[in-house]
């Protein structure tokens, strides 16, 4: 056996466990989803055998107003949460990157939300959102007078915004850490050159920091968007998609169809559509935003 082919075999052998898991946990379920999406598969097997029904699931899906509402809610959530979350992540990263006292203490505190499971975070926020006397309403009453309160998650006009704020808070440390790494990657010389060129602090941000974070921004925009499109846990625990479908997201809809009403074939069609939509969005973002060096 030649040395080259032996080392190739070793490489393949080392890849094998990961490949097996990938196939078993991602490729096979996804292939099954595609297959199920063309059938009337139920969650619990019925005496009547599963039939292939062609594109019926897809046609039914496109006819369902709740599906379109779920899409709109998901898009709205992404449009609200992505810029908001990236802005607070960048802001926090800029503060932690500056030479402030007790920086390492603040850094440790800032990543705390990352250490909590989403269910715990949602439970904490459920307390904050409580009516009529939760902490947020207590603060609201300072301005609006006692007796007034907002049903943050029960009111269709505030439910989505409440979910947005909660979600941004829960996961911003992840983006913040990546921004922090990106900021520390920008050579100090550039800031000094900009100072010599007469750039004020805002201009140094505009002309050195912001362009220096280009690749980080592209990466974070894509993964934060994908994360936002997958919104489920918060909604499922807090609102179950309500009130009046105001927070039903595409995954929440998929879950309801697949588990609550047991229509696995139909839910698979939603999953396949979701996969294609997310892939298309990621590819579009990638196409329009090229990394530094690719433009």
């Amino acid at each position, binding site marked *: 056996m030649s040395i080259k082919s032996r080392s190739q075999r070793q490489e393949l052998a080392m890849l094998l466990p990961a490949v097996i898991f990938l196939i078993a946990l991602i490729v096979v379920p996804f292939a099954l989803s595609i297959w199920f999406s063309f059938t009337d598969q139920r969650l619990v097997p019925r005496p009547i055998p599963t039939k292939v029904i062609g594109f019926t699931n897809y046609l039914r899906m496109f006819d369902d107003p709740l599906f379109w509402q779920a899409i709109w809610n998901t898009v709205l959530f992404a449009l609200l949460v992505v810029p908001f979350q990236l802005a607070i992540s960048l802001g926090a990263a800029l503060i932690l990157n500056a030479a402030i006292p007790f920086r390492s203490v603040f850094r440790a505190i800032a990543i705390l939300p990352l250490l909590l499971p989403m269910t715990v975070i949602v439970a904490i926020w459920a307390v904050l959102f409580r009516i009529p006397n939760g902490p947020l309403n207590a603060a609201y009453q300072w301005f609006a007078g006692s007796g007034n309160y907002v049903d943050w998650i029960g009111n269709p006009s505030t439910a989505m915004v409440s979910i947005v704020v909660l979600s941004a808070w829960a996961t911003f440390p992840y983006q913040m850490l990546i921004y922090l790494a990106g900021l520390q990657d920008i050579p100090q010389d550039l800031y000094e*050159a900009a100072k010599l060129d007469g750039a004020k602090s805002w201009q140094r941000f505009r002309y050195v920091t912001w*362009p220096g974070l280009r690749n980080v921004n592209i990466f974070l925009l894509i993964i934060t968007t994908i994360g936002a499109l997958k919104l489920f846990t918060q909604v499922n625990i807090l609102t179950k998609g309500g009130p009046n479908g105001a927070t039903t997201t595409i995954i929440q809809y998929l879950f309801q169809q697949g588990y609550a009403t047991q229509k696995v074939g139909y839910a698979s069609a939603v999953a396949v559509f979701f996969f294609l939509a997310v892939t298309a969005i990621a590819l579009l973002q990638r196409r329009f935003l090229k990394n*530094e060096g690719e433009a």
Partner: protein
Amino acid sequence: MADVRFSSVRKGYGAVEVIPELDLTIEDGSFTVLVGPSGCGKSTLLRMIAGLEEVTAGTITIGGEDVTHRDPSERGIAMVFQSYALYPHMTVADNIGFGLKLSGLPKDEVAKRVADAAAILQLDKLLERKPRQLSGGQRQRVAIGRAIVRKPKVFLFDEPLSNLDAALRAQMRVELAELHTRIGATMVYVTHDQVEAMTMADRIVVLNGGRIEQAGAPMDLYRAPATPFVAGFIGSPRMNFLEGQAAKALGGDLVGIRPEHLDISAASGLWQGRLRHAEHLGSETLSYVDVEGVGSMTVKTEGEVSVAPNQLVYLSPREGQLHVFNAGKRTSI
């Protein structure tokens, strides 16, 4: 007038004093090279002129104006960094014109001045490129262009050639010297390379441990180094030093002799030694000789010298070329 004056300047980081009290005047229109080993404070001095480093005490004036606490952009200086520090997302033209744009100069005036600088530095055809599309030498030129275009009173260079290969470094040395002649502005140049210092400077300031060891014209430093440190730092190959009895016999507690001021002979001489190794460079030969009671000495001889390893040789210093030091100070004339 754009001389640079340090008056009782000190710089410390907490308890660590990098520059003890220092006074220095850099003459208007001079090409002054600050030279010294790593950590000697030369870059700190330069950065204090630029305003990128606060002084702990004392004052710095440029052209008679106290700039000690002024913003870097208000000192009338421009700086070329070792890393070039070009804005990676901007074109060459934008890099050069950035400072002018921020100062609110009209667009056509910025374009004109960028074009003028580009013409001087032969960057005309590269103006629309990004820094990553340029070679090291071209990037260096852009960095210099960015400095020129602001028409500063003082140019500051922080080891600008250290990222270039040897051939390009030699070429850029000449170009920078020519640029100085053409512009006539005060230039302060930091390097650890004594060849750069000797070839470009009209005045060298040798620094050691934050203190000025000696300041003067390159040939003055070469001919009459004030301290053993300067004697060892200026000149290549390094000066040979005699200590102990060998030095005492010549009137000092340390005596230096440059390799190019030693004659090597197979017949007779002041010191007898055995040739350890010889490097034949064509135009010159470097012989390394182990001299009994003195140690290893280097001899630089023009042209070819036919010597073989282990051969017995004699070394003699040339007339008037001994540098005698007592208590760390030069005592020979």
